[in-house]
């Protein structure tokens, strides 16, 4: 879009360029070319690999497929992953909403630095994340000692996995909620107060509905990412089959022990799950009448 900051002639030139570009893009061949390129990209990078996984999983027939996923170690790994990813998502929804809120609504020294630090988990190699957790909370560390004195273990147990997942998916909800929070009109809140609503009521009936689409899409992304996390988790989980072995690590193990079909079978479970989530969220959001 052209903002009118240019001089009139420059603007006219710009418009001419645009219109000649429009003519170019309108030509049938261009449009065909663009569409094909995008379709090709989509097919080669997304559709084919997915089909590959599905066909690999049933490459030896449906019986071995069923055997692969009905292996207790396999389905326990998948269930554990789902459970822990859900916990991590819930934590991130609560934390992320609050952090997004604080970063947008309050002015305090260091706010900008904090705000840019939010993206750190995206930039950090996940193995480094795992190592960080290991060093900070592992045996011998202050927190680790304290926890074991209090009678529970963090590292090599489920809490460590949740912590790793929370850390890795930390920015999703915050970044999805922030633009929506910024858009909220302060006077809508004030209107709610003048109509007699308390702060709490205003938050839940006026502010939260505006944030909800962000919370949902952020949570969805966080959940999918948590399901898929490998690097950070593999270092801190201990990977005890049936106890702290998550799906991604299980898939890795299957490949290591030369069983691509078993790996594909579990992958299919995860993949299908991701599809269902995506579809459900799409459905929810398309029902929403407001843009």
């Amino acid at each position, binding site marked *: 879009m052209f903002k009118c900051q240019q001089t009139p002639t420059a603007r006219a030139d710009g418009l001419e360029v645009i219109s000649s570009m429009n003519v170019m893009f309108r030509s049938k061949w261009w449009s065909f070319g663009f569409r094909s390129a995008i379709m090709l990209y989509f097919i080669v990078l997304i559709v084919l690999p997915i089909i590959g996984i599905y066909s690999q999983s049933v490459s030896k027939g449906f019986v071995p497929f069923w055997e692969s996923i009905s292996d207790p170690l396999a389905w326990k790994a998948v269930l554990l992953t789902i459970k822990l990813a859900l916990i991590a998502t819930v934590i991130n929804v609560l934390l992320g909403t609050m952090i997004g809120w604080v970063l947008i609504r309050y002015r305090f020294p260091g706010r900008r630095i904090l705000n840019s630090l939010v993206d750190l988990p995206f930039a950090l190699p996940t193995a480094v994340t795992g190592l960080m957790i290991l060093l900070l909370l592992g045996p011998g560390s202050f927190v680790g000692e304290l926890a074991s004195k209090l009678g529970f273990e963090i590292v090599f147990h489920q809490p460590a996995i949740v912590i790793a997942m929370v850390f890795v998916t930390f920015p999703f909800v915050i970044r999805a909620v922030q633009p929506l929070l910024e858009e909220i*009109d302060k*006077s*809508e809140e*004030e*209107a*709610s*107060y*003048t*109509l*007699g*609503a*308390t702060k709490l*009521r205003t938050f839940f*009936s*006026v502010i939260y*509905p*505006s944030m909800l689409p962000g919370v949902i899409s952020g949570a969805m992304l966080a959940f999918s990412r948590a399901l898929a996390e490998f690097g950070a988790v593999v270092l801190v989980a201990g990977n005890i089959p049936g106890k702290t072995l998550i799906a991604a690590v299980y898939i890795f193990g299957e490949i290591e022990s030369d069983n691509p079909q078993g790996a594909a079978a579990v992958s299919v479970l995860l993949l299908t799950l991701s599809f269902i989530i995506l579809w459900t969220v799409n459905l929810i959001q398309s029902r929403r*009448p*407001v*843009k």
Partner: protein
Amino acid sequence: MHIEVRNLNKSFGDFHAVQDVSFEIEKGHLIGLLGPSGGGKTSILRMLAGLETPTSGDIIFHGKRVNDLPPQERGIGFVFQNYALFKHMTVYDNIAFGLKVKKQSKEQIRERVSTLVELTGLKGFEHRYVHQLSGGQRQRVAFARALAPEPQLLLLDEPFAAIDAKIRTELRTWLKEMIERVGITSIFVTHDQDEAIEVADEIMIIGKGRLEQKGTPWEIYKNPQTPFVASFIGESTIVEDIKVLKGFDTALSFPGTKALIRPEYIEIGKPGEIRLQSASVNATVKALHFRGSEWMVELLVDNVKLITYRSLEKEVLQPGEQVSVLVHRAYLFNDNDSWIMENSLKVDPMPIHI
């Protein structure tokens, strides 16, 4: 609701937005807070609503000090400049919000909302969302929503600012009628004097955080108490050197006196058209502008510019033409005082001899 405000002050840091404002409003009156932008009108309104805390002073509703009451407990309705409608709610839910908060029964809510929908002419739009409404409709929803919980006082912040000029006039009349029908004490903020004059029972002129004058539009027009009010209401030109005006010589005894002259104070005519020749001065027509229903005439009297209007029915003037100008009255002011003076020469000085 009877409203009283005493010595209200509001500072934002070093900026003194509202200074020692005191006024009283009778129950059922429709008041316009008029003044230039940034003059503190909205701050006063927001303090009445409880959305802003006064730095000092008292706000009294019905004889009860409400300074420490939050907006929720003041029994007010507030219409925001941008309407601030809840975007994720339908028209119905927007209007019903205040009633739901009050925990009224579903039946009561439905009844009240349908009355208001009927009153505001929004029937058939109940299930629309805000983005599906026009500006005028949004304003009506905001109005209905503010009225739903039956507030004692309705506050409107620039209610017509976001509406295009054509519908604005229509909505003004509508709003005035509506407020009269509901009979609610109302205060609205505007920077548009036509709007204030047309809609309000009484106007309060606010300039630089001070209440300059309060009164009916006619009183304020006829008898402005400060130069600020005089120059803000109506059209006017300021004449620094009153010597050029004939008939105001007595004012010369006060040093530094200036005159404010409204177009309607001035009568012009071709030589001979004006009866009181002795009170008039000669002037040159500098320019003529066609204003739809009349001519706006720019005059030069000894290099002092005056503006007046001339009927289309009268003979058309030409730029450069010599005319006689009779200034009927002037609003005179200096640093200490201000007063209105009639042209002293209008009374024929020698009536007895004729």
